[in-house]
């Protein structure tokens, strides 16, 4: 391709990039982003905690205000340790953990990276 034709092609073609905050490239179905956890489906089998290669999942008691309803141990996910491999999603027998398309996980507060099974009241 000659330099002149290349020049004209580049002059009238759109750039490869998009103006990010205003427009974004749609994220594919099946993307491995932030976890969505449903405590009502969970049966506390702890398979997710055992398969996690980075040991990002820990089974904990829920806070005292929910204790009467949820008596077992439930997964606490540390997104700072997570590598988003999706093994917890694959192994979960009841689909209680699903990886969503949310990729906007940047934060200034370290405690935001920990996902508790249930939110504490007043949080």
């Amino acid at each position: 391709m000659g330099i002149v034709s290349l020049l004209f092609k580049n002059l009238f073609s759109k750039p490869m990039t998009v103006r990010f905050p205003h427009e974004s490239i749609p994220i594919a179905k099946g993307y491995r982003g932030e976890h969505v956890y449903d405590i009502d489906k969970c049966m506390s089998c702890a398979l997710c905690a055992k398969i996690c290669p980075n040991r990002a999942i820990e089974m904990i008691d829920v806070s005292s205000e929910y204790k009467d309803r949820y008596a077992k141990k439930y997964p606490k996910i540390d997104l700072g340790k997570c590598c988003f491999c999706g093994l917890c999603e694959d192994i979960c027998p009841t689909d209680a953990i699903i990886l969503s398309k949310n990729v906007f996980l940047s934060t200034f507060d370290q405690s935001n990276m920990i996902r508790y099974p249930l939110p504490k009241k007043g949080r």
Partner: protein
Amino acid sequence: MSKPLEPVINELEPCPNGTEYNFYFGPAHPGSGNFGVKLIIDGEKVVSARADPGYLHRGFEKLMEYRTPIQNAVLSDRLCVLEPLNWNLVHAEAVDELMDIQVPERAKYIRVIMAELSRIQSHIIWYGVFSKAIGFDTGFKMAFGYRDYILDVFELITGGRVYPTGYICPGGVRRDFPSSAKEKIVHVIDKMKEMIKLGELGNPAMAARTQDIGVLDMKVAIRLGATGPVLRGSGMKTDVRKDEPYEIYDQLDFEIPIRKQGDAYARYWVGIEEMKQSIAIIRQALDILPQGEVIAAKYQKPKITMKIPEGEVYVRNEVARGEAAFYLASDKNGRILRSKIRGPDFLHMIPVLEYLLQGKQIADIPAIYWSLNICPADMDR
């Protein structure tokens, strides 16, 4: 507290004429990656070079001993950031052979298609950083722009852009192709052809900076343990995909590109030709992609405990940078006793680089360094 060990390779020889001095290339140089070279310079000329590895050591071989194979598949991504799917494939093949797993036919095709896409992606990065190293910034931007098309395919198929996190796992692959995958791959291949055309333009600046620079003779290359594009750039016709075919490579028709000159320019051309061959492989595999299961029935769901029979296995593959291999040994209790990883870059970045840098000009260091298609992650492991 114990005293830190004294560095032993940093000692300067007494200068006979007082004009020699120490010169550090990396590890904080923008063009070096997590790797350094300690050089002794006389004027503009390199007297001797000593590689300085270890900045990216993560201890994979030890980590893999106390994890299950499916967790190791996730870990094997990180062996080389630039071509994770190829490393997934080596690991998965080693475990398949050790555990005697029959991989379904469709999974073999998918594995090959993904590994070849990964190879193209890695070669594009090679083209980009090589261009950047010799001051051709347009090539760098162009390469990383085109690489994103392949990352889009990875996002669609594996769910992650750079890290597939064990997509190629023991038993097959973790997900089947979505319905739009084939169409998307064909579209991306066309884009890659555009990229190759631009790379083939024969930039005179590129030729001037790299011709007759870093000449590696074939006999020396073999003695120093070079493999892959570096050895093929020196004129040796060798490729594990042809010499010892794995997966479905024996059913596919492709060439091994070689160049006789052995200089940086020859290695660059081998890279460009290899991308074309990879495209041909993907096209053939897509045309005859069979239907069926993508993972062996027993491994549909990941398993916490996988009992591995006692034995040992050594599996080698051709990754983008050369010959990669996995040695796995297991004990009676069904655990991995030892895993040894053979990465192509260990030999490219230490003996070959040290040999090539001797007696060269400072300005040629980046051209030689990046013409070897290096990856510090793979070398340090």
